[in-house]
């Protein structure tokens, strides 16, 4: 019996600490703690709601843009502003691009090293690697010489004894099962994905001025002026062509590299379809509006809730049922910490009661995290790509069903296999595939509007604060790469009175609630086998499968 501490959990965004009790070679209990707090909800108070998105976006630089989008939606909801068609499409392109980008980076740069032993790639036969590559995909970069060059580069790195980022991995751990050739293939694609993300994200640079932290949102629309005849307009025909090219390259990369790699890796780790199981409750707010954001039926990815793994029923979602506990979080509620609060009544009163640093262990019986514990109808929920794909699947979303079935077919697995560590990875890849296609379509839509002379990008009716009511409150939502994201804003006298963010990773990584119910991370770690408590790669696998973002979660 031992207490394992993983701190820092690396290859994630932010400061996550996992403490796990290991009994008989498996995790018997686990505690998830976020160890950094900034207080952005407090910093937002008293500021101009029109610029809240600029501040809120800095909640996270990895899932950049998603808080900006959610924030403008919250303020638009409060003020009753509908954005023009073009702004809706541009926002979808930006958000879709973010998903694809984030998912690719997650798989290759944040997660792959849990499954890929870089040092084994040195033993690979480049010729066989080439064969393996060609057997799973017709991606052109697959020659023997290509893999040989990658291997040489890796050899030079190892010979230099300066292994850089790779210097401290769990190399040689018995839980690694890929053959050397697959490891070499993965290393090659690790590097290619680095190139890919850099190139693909130029979509954000065009539409947002820069990435991270795009700078073109407006309450009421976007600042990316469109004109078919003005070379100086941010969006013009030449720019549309450029966006199309980038989008179709992304489609190709996802189809020919990402998806085949995920399937290949998964096929070597079939056990992990049965591990890292979760709560069985899945929440998706739905996203990518195809019409008015007020109409939940016009969301490209549907809204809904699945309870107890029952894919036969999708429950409706009502924002009134979202609450947050602070029973085990380093905050105080003014009327006691046992009751949960709806975000419109939400409070953020930091009060650290943990051990004085430097410390060895957290006091897990008391408060032990900077995350709050969000609940839906008092139940913990898992959010993320898996929730979205399951809700879409269960709602009968044909395109999602086809993609999911295709992937499951290749892996010889049932839909229930998705309730697992690998299920999350597969769902994320499938979603990237789906959205890469649709980013292309949305770019085409935008191009068509431009050609037809529909140039409206901003609804200025409520731009002037004098047009606002004295009091207003709004709910803004989005499905961020990591899951259901919402901001609740209250405006009084043209200023932000209260601002509350309930964030995907808060749902998943939050501590226990007043009823002792665990969140998704803590639940999913239970029963995870641990081969070597000194090198708990298995914990990383499951935690990473959620793609944690702690800056988001605490904010």
């Amino acid at each position, binding site marked *: 019996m031992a207490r394992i501490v993983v701190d820092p959990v690396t290859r994630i965004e932010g400061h996550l600490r996992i403490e796990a009790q290991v009994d008989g070679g498996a995790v018997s209990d686990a505690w998830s703690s976020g160890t950094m707090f900034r207080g952005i909800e407090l910093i937002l108070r008293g500021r101009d709601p029109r610029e809240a998105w600029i501040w809120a976006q800095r909640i996270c630089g990895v899932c950049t843009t998603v808080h900006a989008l959610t924030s403008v939606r919250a303020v638009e909801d409060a003020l009753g502003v509908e954005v023009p068609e073009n702004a809706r499409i541009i926002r979808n392109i930006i958000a879709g691009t973010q998903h694809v980008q984030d998912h690719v980076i997650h798989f290759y*740069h944040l997660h792959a090293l849990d499954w890929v032993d870089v040092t084994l790639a040195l033993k690979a036969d480049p010729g066989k690697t080439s064969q393996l590559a060609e057997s799973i995909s017709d991606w052109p970069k697959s020659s023997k010489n290509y893999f040989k060059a990658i291997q040489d580069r890796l050899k030079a790195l190892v010979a230099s004894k300066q292994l850089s980022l790779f210097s401290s991995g769990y190399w040689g751990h018995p839980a690694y099962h890929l053959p050397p050739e697959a490891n070499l293939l993965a290393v090659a694609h690790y590097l290619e994905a680095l190139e890919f993300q850099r190139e693909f994200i*130029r979509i954000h640079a065009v539409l947002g001025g*820069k990435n991270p932290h795009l700078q073109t949102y407006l309450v009421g629309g976007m600042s990316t002026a469109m004109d078919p005849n003005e070379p100086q307009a941010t969006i013009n025909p030449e720019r549309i062509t450029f966006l199309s090219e980038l989008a179709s390259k992304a489609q190709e990369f996802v189809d020919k590299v990402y998806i085949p790699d995920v399937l290949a890796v998964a096929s070597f780790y079939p056990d992990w379809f049965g591990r890292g199981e979760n709560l069985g409750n899945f929440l998706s707010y739905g996203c990518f509006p195809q019409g008015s954001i007020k109409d939940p039926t016009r969301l490209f990815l549907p809204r809904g809730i699945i309870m107890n793994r029952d894919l036969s029923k999708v429950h409706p979602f009502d924002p009134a049922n979202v609450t947050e506990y602070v029973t085990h979080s380093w905050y105080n509620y003014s009327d006691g910490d046992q009751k949960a609060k709806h975000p419109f009544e939400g409070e953020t009163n930091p009060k650290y009661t943990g051990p004085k640093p430097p410390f060895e262990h957290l006091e897990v019986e008391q408060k032990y995290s900077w995350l709050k514990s969000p609940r839906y109808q008092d139940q913990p929920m898992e959010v993320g790509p898996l929730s979205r794909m399951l809700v879409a699947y269960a709602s009968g979303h044909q395109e999602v069903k086809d993609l999911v079935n295709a992937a499951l077919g290749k892996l010889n697995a049932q839909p229930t296999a998705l309730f697992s560590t690998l299920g999350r990875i597969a769902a994320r890849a499938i979603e990237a595939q789906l959205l890469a296609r649709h980013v292309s379509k949305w770019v085409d839509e935008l191009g068509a509007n431009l050609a037809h002379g529909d140039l409206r990008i901003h609804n200025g009716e409520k731009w002037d604060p004098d047009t606002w009511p004295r009091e207003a409150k709004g709910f803004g939502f989005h499905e961020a790469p990591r899951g259901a994201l919402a901001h609740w804003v209250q405006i009084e006298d*043209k200023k932000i009175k209260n601002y509350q963010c309930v964030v995907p990773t808060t749902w998943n990584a939050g501590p226990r609630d007043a009823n002792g119910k665990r969140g998704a991370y803590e639940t999913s770690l239970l029963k995870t086998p641990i081969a070597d408590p000194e090198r708990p790669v298995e914990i*990383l696998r499951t935690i990473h499968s959620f793609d944690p973002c702690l800056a988001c979660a605490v904010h």
Partner: protein
Amino acid sequence: MLQGQSFTGALQSRGVDRRRFIKFCSAMVATLALPPRYVAQVASALEKAKKPVLVWLQFQDCAGNSESMLRSSHPTVAEAVLDLLSWEYHELVMAGAGHQAEAALERVVREEKGKFIAVVEGAIPLADGGVYCTVAGKTALEIARHVCSNAAATIAAGACAWDGGLVRANPNPTGAVGIEEAVPQAKVINLGGCPQNPANTAAVLVHYLTFGELPAVDQYNRPLFAYGRIIHDQCERRAHYDAGRFTQEWGDEGHRKGWCLYKMGCKGPQATFNCPSARWNDGTSWPVKAGHGCLGCASHRFWDTRSPFYERLPDVPGFGVDVTAGQIGLGVTAAVAAGTVVHGIASAVRDRMRTRAAIQPSPAKPKAKE
């Protein structure tokens, strides 16, 4: 320094030819605003240099500066991380976790003392004993002191690391500060911006590798090559500003034609940075080009000093956010004018009453001499 391979050695081992290498050096020299004759010096220095060790620390951050670095194009992040430097610690992307990660950092501090480069991302909370940011049970402050005071140089990447950034914005709930303030004994160069631009970060690193020292800095310890000129003077919309052609409403004709964003709150006239020339994401664009005003994100304490972002001037302390200095000024002026008119009438009345009073007792007529 550890046994290592040089940058060109590393590049050659993967078939990067010399032309491309020289091109890279030229790009760096251009970013650093050095005369072209320095290309050869940069090239030869990089050819000789053994890879120095770099550690990247994250504190109260959003990882935006790390992500920004991932988007670096000259050099690409793969070149920077694998070839140019030995990037030994960076929580966002490093292989090891937990104890292994801690050990990697510790080894660098021990074995590379005084030689390695530290990059800091994020602010450091000083309030309440630093409990607002801990890694492995230790406070950010403790780690920063331990690492940065042993580094040859510390690069503050982004606003948060420089001056506390967003985290320090009013009311600064965690008592956050930048690295310079937290660890005064560290030798720090500040790369403002939210996030910093990786083109500049790369140039600072290349400068350091080439000349063995950090580039020239301004009063905020920001490199002059990147922070020496105001945005407004480099902006492609400047001709429109001078001509008085302004975007008046989002999406109006002026906006579509690329007119100046001054009236939409652009802080370009109050911001130094090289965005218009360095641009972002492989030179693709920058915020003003994309139609939104500059926030002045590379300015000192910009969150409080450059906001509100859609207004020309800061809020006047003591008034609501929706009242501008102009409204207050015009209001007070009008009130004074009105008061003066009233006073004038009252004085005229007094004058007449007194005149009457003066006339009554004495028949002499009060008359001015002139």
